[in-house]
């Protein structure tokens, strides 16, 4: 199977339409008043903001900017503000530094040197704010995880990935960039290197050790049932790199599928109860 960049090209008008319909349908069924989303100033959340505004009208979309002192960058703040203005969103800017500091002070085990765990607390704290606002205001939390990050497990369990709906989770990062352009996200945001903002100067591609342009094609190959050696040959890269991606993808399933228990009885939560997800 061909693995050139154009395999990731979709009919963006149709994708836009389908995602807007998906968002609107869910909000209607849940009888919610709109969505709340975290606005980081990055391409994923900006695209989600744009789609939500197109689906529901900007006044039914609340963008929370949840910055904290270690990772706050003025460029990100101004990009988030730009999105609020451009798509007519409601917004609230919250500095979560004091909440993080309170947590850190209260946890005897806290270690300021443990960058990864402290970063995860930031992601989970943002989730706490999103759900607090959602529950207070009758909103649905709209997540902005993309397929590349989700497949790679490059997210915080119960953190940034936690949401009621995740409209762009079936689009790879490079596809999100294309969709972002289509829905009018400014180029400076589309082109900016991705960062989960767990610590200063953290960049996704650096951390993952691979460019999204290449990663997305490897993941696309797996999605299409290709074997690692075929993918490596098609992309002219080392098989070990493809296998490392596969290993990372498979070993992160515990972060994607929640609620695991031991099977004891007839039907088991998370295992073989199969129930509809849409709100009744």
């Amino acid at each position, binding site marked *: 199977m061909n693995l050139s960049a154009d395999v990731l090209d979709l009919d963006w008008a149709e994708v836009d339409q*389908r995602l807007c319909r998906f968002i609107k349908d869910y909000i209607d069924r849940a009888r919610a008043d709109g969505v709340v989303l975290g606005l980081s100033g990055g391409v994923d959340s900006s695209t989600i903001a744009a789609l939500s505004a197109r689906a529901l009208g900007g006044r039914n979309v609340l963008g929370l900017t949840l910055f904290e002192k270690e990772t706050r960058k003025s460029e990100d703040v101004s990009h988030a503000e730009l999105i609020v203005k451009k798509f007519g969103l409601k917004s609230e800017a919250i500095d979560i530094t004091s909440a993080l500091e309170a947590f850190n002070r209260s946890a005897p085990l806290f270690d300021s040197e443990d960058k990864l765990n402290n970063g995860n607390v930031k992601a989970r704290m943002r989730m706490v704010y999103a759900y607090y606002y959602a529950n207070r205001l009758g909103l649905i939390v709209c997540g902005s995880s993309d397929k590349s990050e989700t497949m790679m497990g490059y997210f915080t369990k119960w953190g940034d990935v936690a949401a009621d709906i995740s409209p762009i989770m079936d689009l790879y990062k490079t596809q999100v960039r294309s969709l972002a352009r289509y829905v009018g996200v400014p180029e400076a945001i589309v082109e900016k290197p991705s960062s989960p903002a767990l610590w200063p100067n953290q960049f996704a591609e650096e951390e993952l050790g691979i460019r999204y342009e290449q990663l997305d094609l490897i993941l696309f190959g797996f999605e299409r049932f290709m074997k690692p050696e075929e993918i490596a040959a098609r992309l002219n890269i080392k098989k070990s790199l493809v296998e490392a991606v596969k290993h990372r993808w498979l070993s992160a399933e515990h972060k994607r599928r929640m609620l695991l228990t031991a099977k004891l009885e007839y039907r088991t939560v998370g295992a073989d109860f199969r129930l509809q997800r849409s709100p009744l």
Partner: protein
Amino acid sequence: MKEQFKIALAQISCRQGNKTENIAKISKNISKAKKQGAELVVFPEMSLTGYVIKDEVYDLAERIPGPSTKIIENLAKKNDIHVIFGMPETNPQTEATLHNSAVLVGPDGYIGKYRKMYLPTHSIFEEKRYFRPGYEAAVFDTELGKLGFIICYDIYFPEVTRLTRLKGAKLIVCISASPGVRRAYFEILTLARAIENTAYFAYVNLAGVEDGLQFWGGSRLVGPSGRVLVQAKYDVEDFVTHEVDYSDIRPIEAFLPTLRDLRPELFDQLKHGAEQL
């Protein structure tokens, strides 16, 4: 038997698991079809319950005929119209055995049912987890001629449609719950089934979203030459009608005699090949 009549394609979206609401919608569309002079109105696969109902199917499935078909029968009688719709069926002999079925009722009540033969169990589909396949092609002799039935994934297996044609169906009805990612296939297959059988082919798909799955709509009546005579909107609910005129079939059959040219001996080879696969 009528040579000509109007068919209505009622492309609805369903409320998952809510028969009362879905029957109300079916009822409204039956009245609409009647008002527009249609003598047959077709609803999508599993239109009684919605498609994505998962384990709830055990509660929602009913015998055919049964309480829900009775309601639709009464609507058909009251409106003097034929109605085709889809629902999960409880097998009368073994209650936990279910079928994905199509039901035909008419002005005189219940006429018949068809049990889906090919149950998709791949990608997001889990039909074999819940349903037992049917083993019989279904053709019913009505005042609207012989009507043949297939359901959704059956369309990928031309023998199902062909069997209905060989049993005399001139209008083959395919009820469907096809999500957007499959649209390109169905757009071709609906035309192919009409052309290779020189028959009218009515395709009625769900619209709307169920658990994130978006059904692409696009219901259509295809003429015996493969021409799309009428098509409903993509993705959203719609209602379209068109004339079926069986006298259009003979000229096409003469021009492209696919049935005349059938080679029965090849079917033995097909059987052998399939068994060896």
